[in-house]
């Protein structure tokens, strides 16, 4: 029998009592960036302009503990009305039934233009065709390159390799290793830190490797594609020195490395003035399985138990309509067909050239697959992390470690 917790009942009663008098929408986000908040508040102001009894508050939570804090709020009977949700927890949130369905409101809201949303990037946020959260940010992983460092090391730049039709992981790592022979480092998988292993998908997708089967039932770590990809990564770390080793802290944006795999929104971290360096932004190289793209996503959902759920869905429709999506596009690449072009994105991303936008963003979103996700992801993530720690040793037996990963996580799949 399913029962609501006593705390939740108490909180809902209190919330219902309060709902009659005021409608205060609260949305949790993981950005505290002033520029981001300025755009959110501008969008909120346009929503509340003709609704004097409504207010919208954005609550910034630290990224590292974001989902933990959010679930603690839910457990304490004090969930927000809307929340940003990371792709890695998408399956848990969408399948739990805690989010409000959006199809009906989006289809009936004038000017929303539901059909303008590209369907593929919304797959993660649907269940049985119903949309439960809007992916407001769909950011392809790409490679930033410090061309000053690469040229100084006498290595081939990504642009030269692309020009020659030789932009492959083999050659990219050769460039990184060449730079790492000096006192700088090669290529960084940003935010990986030998903990967040799913970010390695940016590399292993080039081998057509996947941590689990498409239906999520079978472990894929021990598959030949994954073994080949991980052997390549292990060699790049411990034999070629192309990737900084475990326990080493290197910052590309401080000019300490040749390349960094990350999302385009990080362009804002590029140094200016005396610290500036010549840089390029290129798509991920091709792997043995060909060309591919990987996208990172974040979505906004509405908690259906919220006393303001209907109003919150209306606000979400307002926030992600074509006009406001264009405003958000300067930070968060949208999934609206009408906005995915060099003209629109170029106007709001002055750092990126039209070629970068077309090759990296537009093409990336169109063909990109999201980072690996699975129901019960947090627990699987920890188990894989614990087993993979044995891989990050110079003399590791790659195949044996990946076999151990599968034995560990298979019961949870």
């Amino acid at each position, binding site marked *: 029998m399913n029962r609501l917790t006593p705390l939740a009942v108490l909180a809902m009663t209190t919330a219902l009592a309060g709902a009659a008098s005021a409608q205060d929408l609260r949305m949790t986000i993981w950005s505290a960036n002033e520029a981001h908040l300025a755009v959110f508040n501008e969008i909120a102001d346009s929503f509340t302009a003709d609704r004097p009894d409504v207010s919208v508050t954005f609550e910034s939570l630290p990224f590292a503990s974001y989902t933990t804090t959010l679930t603690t709020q839910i457990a304490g009977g004090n969930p927000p009305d809307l929340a940003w949700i990371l792709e890695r927890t998408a399956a848990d949130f969408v399948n739990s039934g805690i989010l409000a369905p959006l199809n009906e409101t989006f289809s009936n809201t004038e000017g929303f233009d539901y059909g303008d949303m590209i369907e593929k990037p919304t797959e993660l946020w649907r269940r049985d065709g119903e949309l439960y959260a809007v992916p407001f940010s769909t950011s392809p992983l790409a490679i930033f390159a410090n061309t000053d460092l690469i040229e100084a090391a006498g290595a081939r730049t990504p642009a030269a390799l692309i020009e020659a039709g030789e932009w492959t992981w083999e050659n990219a790592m050769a460039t990184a290793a060449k730079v790492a022979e000096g006192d700088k480092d090669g290529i960084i998988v940003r935010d990986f830190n030998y903990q967040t292993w799913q970010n390695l998908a940016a590399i292993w997708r080039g081998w057509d490797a996947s941590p689990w089967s498409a239906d999520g039932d079978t472990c894929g770590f021990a598959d030949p594609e994954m073994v080949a990809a991980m052997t390549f990564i292990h060699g790049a770390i411990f034999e070629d020195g192309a990737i900084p080793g475990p326990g080493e802290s290197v910052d590309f944006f401080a000019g300490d490395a040749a390349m960094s795999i990350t999302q385009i929104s990080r362009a804002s971290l590029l140094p200016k003035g005396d610290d500036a360096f010549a840089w390029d932004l290129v798509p991920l190289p091709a792997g043995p399985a060909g060309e591919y793209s990987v996208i990172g996503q974040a979505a906004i959902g509405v908690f259906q138990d919220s006393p303001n759920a209907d109003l919150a869905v209306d606000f979400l429709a307002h926030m992600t309509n074509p006009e406001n999506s264009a405003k958000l596009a300067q930070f968060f690449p949208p999934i609206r067909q009408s906005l995915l072009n060099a003209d629109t994105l170029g106007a709001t991303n002055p750092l990126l050239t039209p070629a970068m936008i077309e090759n990296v963003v537009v093409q990336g979103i169109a063909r990109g697959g999201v980072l690996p996700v699975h129901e019960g992801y*947090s627990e699987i993530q920890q188990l894989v992390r*614990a087993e993979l720690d044995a891989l990050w040793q110079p003399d590791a037996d790659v195949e044996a470690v990946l076999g151990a990963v599968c034995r560990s996580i298979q019961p949870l799949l």
Partner: protein
Amino acid sequence: MTVVATRSDPPRRKRVFWTMDRRDSLVGYLFIAPQVLGICVFVLLPLALVFWYSLHEWNVLARTFRFTGTENYQRLLSDPGLVKVLGATGIFSVFLVVFNMSLALLLAVLLNQKLRGITIFRTLFFSPVVVSLVAWTIVWSFLLQNNGGLNGILQVFGIEGPNWLRNPTTAMISVVVVQVFKNVGLNMILFLAALQGVPKELYEAARVDGIPAVAQFRRITLPMISPTVLLTSIITIVGSLQVFAQIAVLTKGGPGMSTTVLVYYLYQQAFEFHKFGYGATLSILLFAIVAVLTFVQWQMRKRIVFYEQ
């Protein structure tokens, strides 16, 4: 003439309810009321709730709260991860307590001297206690990186340091050392106060009798400060079982599960894996371990603690 004998009752004294004793008691109860209320609301009620939650399977996202009886407790016995976790917790606690108390006592003895500027050293060793725990740990995380400050210093002397936080043994040593250096000052101050309370005459008598310094320490100092040793050992053991921030910042329980101590494990289960029922059960286990250890130490006081009459 009839004489009617009347028995005159002694005048009935009106019984006063608010006697002096009762007034005193009321004042006493009022004084302790806030504390009792606080303990009820912030200690006993949460404790009861945690026990109640431990009898349920509580999935926060699916909003299910299902009574499962002793299922979570049975799971404790069959959880393969828990064996590793209890092992790591035991190793961490034993090394921490031994290292912390030995170092604290050594520092206290060294600093229990009348020297010019000795207060500066006492302040220096105590200062980490008042530093923010997370800030302290983050600084250490930079020092302990493979290309961090500690290995940089070792390199100056031609030593290639290990990758401190990526090897199971050195990672455990690192979290113990970081925790010891953070809190050793507190035990040091308690020992110092105890040392200064030992009567000087005892040492003078021992010197007259020709007792060597080591024997003086064993026969006079240790027995005289034994109540403080008991107090610090209880505080340190309980503290060692509750360590969390150092693990979360430095190792996240790794490599593998080598530094996943019980508190970090229950945090993962409850707040990362959303298994609040099992997390609550692990809390009860932690509570039971702390209660048993404290009870045993308290019972041992009669045998190891010397109380001056």
